[in-house]
């Protein structure tokens, strides 16, 4: 099967800092991939390069057949392709980033209406369906500031889903949450995975990775140092850096 996401030889520099070093990954349709690694290893940057929130310095990004090859850090000439890639990828942020001046429902239909030009009725129907599936339909006319962190993140997931993306990118979706609210968000993500969505998830939730991921990628110092099925990775880590990371989680470290 052809991969739905293909990152080839990706390099990223922040001025002189080499953050991603010749990274290549492939994700198959319907696959759930978790990306783990220590703070500062480049996980967010990799995720953000895929939908061009960060401009890659060099390398090729391909999502669902749309390919962008960056040679020297400029993406200007690829604007139409980048727009298409953004339509095909939904993103969920650690800090939710809901629009505070819009109600829950308005947040969710904003993308389809403004970006895709979908008619309002259709967008509302789709939005309500997605809000229902994350269990947030009962708050549809509420403003985000009236929601708990877990509820905000579920709305953010519904907002991304309502764009009907092919791939969902999650950047530590539960890291900003109080411990007792993490479960409800992870449950929603499990459901999204079960519905067949392709997912790339940066997370520190090893339980989630073990249970849901088809594959776990380990990142260290801007490189993917190991990739394996979760059961293999957690029981028989090959790379010493993976080992160290897993030990840290075992002992309850972040």
């Amino acid at each position, binding site marked *: 099967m052809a991969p739905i996401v293909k990152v080839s030889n990706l390099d990223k520099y922040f001025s002189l800092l080499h953050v991603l070093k010749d990274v290549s990954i492939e994700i198959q349709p319907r696959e759930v991939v978790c990306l783990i690694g220590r703070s500062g290893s480049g996980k967010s940057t990799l995720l953000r390069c895929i*939908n061009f929130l960060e401009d890659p310095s060099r390398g090729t990004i391909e999502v669902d057949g749309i390919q962008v090859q960056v040679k020297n850090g400029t993406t200007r000439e690829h604007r139409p392709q980048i727009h298409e890639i*953004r339509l095909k*990828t939904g*993103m969920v*942020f650690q800090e939710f980033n809901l629009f505070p001046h819009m109600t829950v429902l308005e947040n969710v239909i*904003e993308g389809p209406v*403004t970006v895709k030009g979908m008619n309002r009725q259709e967008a509302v129907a789709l939005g309500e369906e997605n809000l229902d599936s994350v269990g947030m339909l009962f708050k549809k006319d509420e403003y985000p500031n009236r929601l708990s962190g877990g509820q905000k993140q579920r709305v953010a997931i519904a907002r991304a889903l309502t*764009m009907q993306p092919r791939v969902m990118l999650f950047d530590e979706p539960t890291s900003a949450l109080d411990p007792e609210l993490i479960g409800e968000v992870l449950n929603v993500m499990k459901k999204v995975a079960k519905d067949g969505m392709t997912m790339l998830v940066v997370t520190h939730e090893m339980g989630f990775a073990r249970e849901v991921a088809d594959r776990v990628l380990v990142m260290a110092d801007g490189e993917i140092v190991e990739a394996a099925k979760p059961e293999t990775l957690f029981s028989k880590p090959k790379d010493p850096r993976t080992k160290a990371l897993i030990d840290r989680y075992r002992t309850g470290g972040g």
Partner: protein
Amino acid sequence: MSTATQSEKGTGKTHVEMLHEAQLRKARDFRRNVSLSWGILFLILVYMFSGQSFLGLNTIQLDFDFIRKNLSFIAGGLGQTLLVSFLSITLATILALLAALGRLSKFPPFYALSTFYVSLIRGTPLYLQIFFFFLALPQVGIVLTGLIAGVIALGLNYGAYMSEIFRAGLESVGRGQREAAVALGMTPMQTMQRVILPQALRFAIPPIGNDFIAMTKDSALVSATGFVHEVMWRAIRVGRSQFKGLEALVMAALFYWVMTIILTYFQGIIEARLAKGDR
């Protein structure tokens, strides 16, 4: 009070509730005493203009006949004052927004235009700017009506100062908001229109209200040109012609004062309404 004591014993209010009530009472007393003091200060002010003599101190004698006769003439300028202020604040708001966007722009000419405008306007007196449009422009063949010249001068001036408000408003919108919009596929224009601006505007509305109130008073400066017949111009005109400058200015002052009190009241209502949907 006795009923309160009863209920304290009867239903047994908690300590926290009693503290809360004491706090409310304190706040209420404070407000009442402030109002009372305001009333006294106001009466003293009125007394000072009463013409009475007290303990050998003479207070100011006003010619109430003059006041009565010219009240409607000076009041007739209120419309012009508000019109000038309203048009000027509208122009200022547009210019301020453009200047703020320019200031945050990565396009050098736009950035330069914005900083150039703000620097030039802030580096020269408002009084000079107003006369510039009346006296300097006609010399090169551009003659503007009094109203338009006044509005342009005030609008340009306030726009330069207000650009800071918009800059702060735009910067108050977090980076994550732009990223969320871009990730949804919004163009930079859509991101600005749908996500950034609405939040920045909400942030900017209270200070714009302040500036509007300040503008109603600064609009008096355009009276100096003699072409806009607002409150100040009328006061000076009747005051001079009948040697009743004191009465005329007291009347004008009262008009401005009452006007700002009313506008401040409405501003308070708008702010409270904005705060309700606040995050």
